[in-house]
């Protein structure tokens, strides 16, 4: 009897998990309609200004290009610390997001500014590498000083139904992270259905993710409001079940501050006030910061702004 039970039970699961194939099914039409409702709220004046500042403070300023150089990363770090010199009392961004090879440069450039360094890892963006390489990739990033690790799941294995493989992989990367917080990128653009997004979210959270993240930014569609809503509801259900808060990071395709404010409305109405800080919610974006700054400048001066007068990096 005892032997038979140990065969049935997976020994490496610390949190009691269900059968992921039985994850909640998603009503696609309902989700899309619900998500579009969040875009109908009117946010003006003081509320808008505070919202924009919060958005700025939630941005993971990102550069993930093959052509990245030390100079580019340093410049981006400067931008992170001084988003705009003419605007008084604006916050810094939350973090800089770079490849592992750039972590040391970013860490040094940011100094004691309090801005975190996030590093992608695990053979980003495809994730097509053996597990030991992914673990070494992660450990390298952490040893270089990364405060946060953004990993990608093995979408191929996920589609093949090998949920245990995906689960174990996330758990092993979490272990390799040590104190660094782990963001798990589902790459929703490659998952195909909301049902699968929900299932992947459940797997990631049960396997130890600190954040779940929509996309790498390399695949279209990247973050959308409906897909983010599905993930936020997964976080909410997980919280009710376990009492553990999980962060959310939509990434890619959010470049307008108006859209970012819609996202904030959605987070507030699905998860509540507790999630309204960069501890629990992030935007993965490169051009959003400038649009937010342009809007803040518009609020200050009353003039519509031109991108020509804002630094690119």
């Amino acid at each position, binding site marked *: 009897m005892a032997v038979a039970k140990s065969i049935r039970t997976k020994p490496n699961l610390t949190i009691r998990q269900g059968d992921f194939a039985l994850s909640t099914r998603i009503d696609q039409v309902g989700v899309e309609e619900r998500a579009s409702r969040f875009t109908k709220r009117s946010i003006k004046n003081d509320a808008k200004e505070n919202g924009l500042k919060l958005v700025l403070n939630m941005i993971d300023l990102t550069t993930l290009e093959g052509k990245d150089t030390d100079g580019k990363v340093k410049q981006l770090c400067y931008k992170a610390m001084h988003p705009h010199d003419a605007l008084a009392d604006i916050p810094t961004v939350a973090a800089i997001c770079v490849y592992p090879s750039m972590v040391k440069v970013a860490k040094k450039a940011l100094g004691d500014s309090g801005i975190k360094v996030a590093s992608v890892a695990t053979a980003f963006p495809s994730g097509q590498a053996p597990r030991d390489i992914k673990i070494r990739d992660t450990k390298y990033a952490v040893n270089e000083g990364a405060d946060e690790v953004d990993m990608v799941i093995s979408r191929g294995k996920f589609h093949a139904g090998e949920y245990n493989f995906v689960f174990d992989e996330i758990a092993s990367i979490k272990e390799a992270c040590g104190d660094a917080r782990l963001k798990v990128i589902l790459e929703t653009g490659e998952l195909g259905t909301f049902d699968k997004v929900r299932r992947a979210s459940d797997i990631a959270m049960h396997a130890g993710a600190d954040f779940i993240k929509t996309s790498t930014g390399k695949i279209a569609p990247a973050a959308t409001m409906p897909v983010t809503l599905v993930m936020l509801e997964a976080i909410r259900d997980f919280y009710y079940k376990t009492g553990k808060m999980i962060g959310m990071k939509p990434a890619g395709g959010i470049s307008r501050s108006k859209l970012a404010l819609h996202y904030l409305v959605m987070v507030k109405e699905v998860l509540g006030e507790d999630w309204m800080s960069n501890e629990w919610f992030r935007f993965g974006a490169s051009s959003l910061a400038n649009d937010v700054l342009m809007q803040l400048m518009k609020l200050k001066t009353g003039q*519509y*702004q031109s991108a020509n007068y804002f630094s690119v990096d």
Partner: protein
Amino acid sequence: MEKEIKKSSLKVSENGLEKTVSSKRLEVLKTYKIYIGGQFPRTESGRYYQPVSASGKILANVCLSSRKDFRDAVVSARGAVSGWSGRAAFNRSQILYRMAEMLEGRKAQFIDELIQQDATKAKAEKEVNLAIDRLIYYAGWCDKFQQLFSAVNPVASSHFNFSVPEPTGVVSIIAPQGDSLLGLVSVIAPVIAGGNTCVVLASETKPLCAVTFAEVLNSSDLPGGVVNILTGKPAELASWFVDHMDVNATIYCENNSETKKMIREKSAMNLKRITFYDKINWYTNEGESPYFIMDTQEIKTTWHPVENIAGAGGGY
């Protein structure tokens, strides 16, 4: 306009009772909408106004555009700059010619609208014909003004030094109030002939032709966003037209000295080019000239190092 429609009698059976109904067709009136980015949206504000003819007849319900419509139009215009200015000048010429062709094809409608806006038949015909000719005129200039206004400059060093006109970018235009078609065409054509994109505020009191002209633009190969046409009140929108940091030049065609002062002051923020066309008779030759194109051009000078081959001491 009540048109007598051939009366037809229908026998309609209702509740078993037979009665005769005379059917007079209800006219389907056109909705005059604004033109932004190649689309015809209504104003985001949901507001409208009713311009009236001299006899007091309401011409139409016309969009009363807001500053946010203007903001959206500038975004469209900015997005269209690189594509439009990057086209071959000859291709821009072809498209302006096409605009004239499409205008010719809808002549009757424009004449009808001008008459509704109090023009006599003769004057309306003259205005439409001149508007078509003016488009042809600037179609011709598209690939020719560059030669006329560029120069090779003599310099005291081994450089090939030349200056060429380049489009300034996004131009905001407050069109003439009076000549609602000819004035509009006469200010838009030179701006886009030179490779700029524009946002235009049509005549407040006579907006019908402007909206119909947008339909001409929409069917004449002109890329969306190159010309954006709003209807509304200059008094409300003028300051936004000149305040926007992403607008490179402003053209003002009225003679309100307060507005002119405001334009001069606000344009200083990002050093806009400002041009006033307040004393121009668009019906004469003074209404067309390549110098109108140059009003929204910038001169770029290039110093290209060369070996001084012909000079003394130069040699192979």
